[in-house]
């Protein structure tokens, strides 16, 4: 996820290398070399888009949000603490700007793009699934923004708790705790559809 590293490099090594690279790039931008920012754009636009899409739920809006977040990051780069990792700082901008964008476009319908949805295995038949969708939407609304984000990134996007933690500046244990709480709430609300554990 974070660029080139030796084949036997651990994720921690990757993170340290990415951090060092980001600090160097930020230093170059601050020293008057704006083109160095392009490397940061290439390094983080996919993660930024993933989070942006989860915030606004619409591809074009998510692309606009990513662009806006990078512009804001560039504009306020002087306020960034280079002792801390760049990615969570950028993702926080995505989250904040995304919340503003969502409020501003609250009236616009933001249905998920149907062609992007792939069929997934489920024991439920179609009518049950439709009913479950309604209940799940309602249950999702009871989760906190962070729980909703984490359960989606984990169970839909297939990210690990470490990857989500890096993105949101949380420890993996904290991510797993939010995930546990979110799943418990959702499975509790949908208990009639699931056999067994909550």
């Amino acid at each position, binding site marked *: 996820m974070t660029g080139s590293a030796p084949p036997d490099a651990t994720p921690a090594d990757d993170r340290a290398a990415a951090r060092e690279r980001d600090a160097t790039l930020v230093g170059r931008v601050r020293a008057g070399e704006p083109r160095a920012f392009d490397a940061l754009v290439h390094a983080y636009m996919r993660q930024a*888009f993933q989070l942006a899409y989860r915030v606004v739920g619409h591809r074009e809006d998510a692309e606009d949000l990513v662009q806006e977040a990078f512009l804001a990051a560039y504009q306020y780069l002087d306020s960034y603490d280079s002792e801390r990792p760049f990615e969570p700082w950028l993702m926080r901008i995505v989250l904040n700007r995304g919340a503003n964008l969502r409020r501003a476009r609250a009236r616009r319908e933001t249905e998920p793009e149907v062609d992007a949805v792939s069929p997934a295995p489920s024991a439920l038949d179609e009518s049950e699934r439709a009913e479950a969708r309604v209940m*799940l939407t309602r249950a999702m609304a009871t989760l906190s923004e962070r729980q909703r984000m984490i359960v989606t990134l984990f169970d839909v996007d297939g990210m690990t708790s470490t990857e989500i933690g890096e993105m949101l500046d949380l420890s*993996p244990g*904290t991510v*797993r705790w939010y995930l546990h709480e979110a799943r418990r709430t959702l499975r509790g609300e949908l208990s009639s559809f699931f056999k067994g554990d909550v």
Partner: protein
Amino acid sequence: MTDSRTLGAGAFRPEPAHDPELGALLRDVVGETPHGVVNWTTLAARICDRVGRQAAAPWWSYATQWERRVIPLALAAGIAAAAALWTTASASTTQVPSASALATAVVSGTPAEDAASQFARSITNAVDLAAGVPE
């Protein structure tokens, strides 16, 4: 709620398995991230272009970012200042009759009662004017 950074990597071990059943339902509701639909090259070029333009922008371009807020504020401040100046000027030009005016009236032979009532009327008018009371 627990502080977000108090739980270390040791909490909630091990990494939970992905939940395909819940994941499938969630996917129905929120959709998958359409990574395959995005043209990453175009998006990156668009962002880098915007950043480059922002970097090359002259110093006065920052003023244009604020003009939509600053111009109405400046207009409002100007109107308020003009109103304050006008009010001050009106108040300072209002003539308050002095005691010497009364003395002049008496010396010129005006009956004392007339001079006193004229003086009182002129004071009342001056106070009304200063207070903005219509005549």
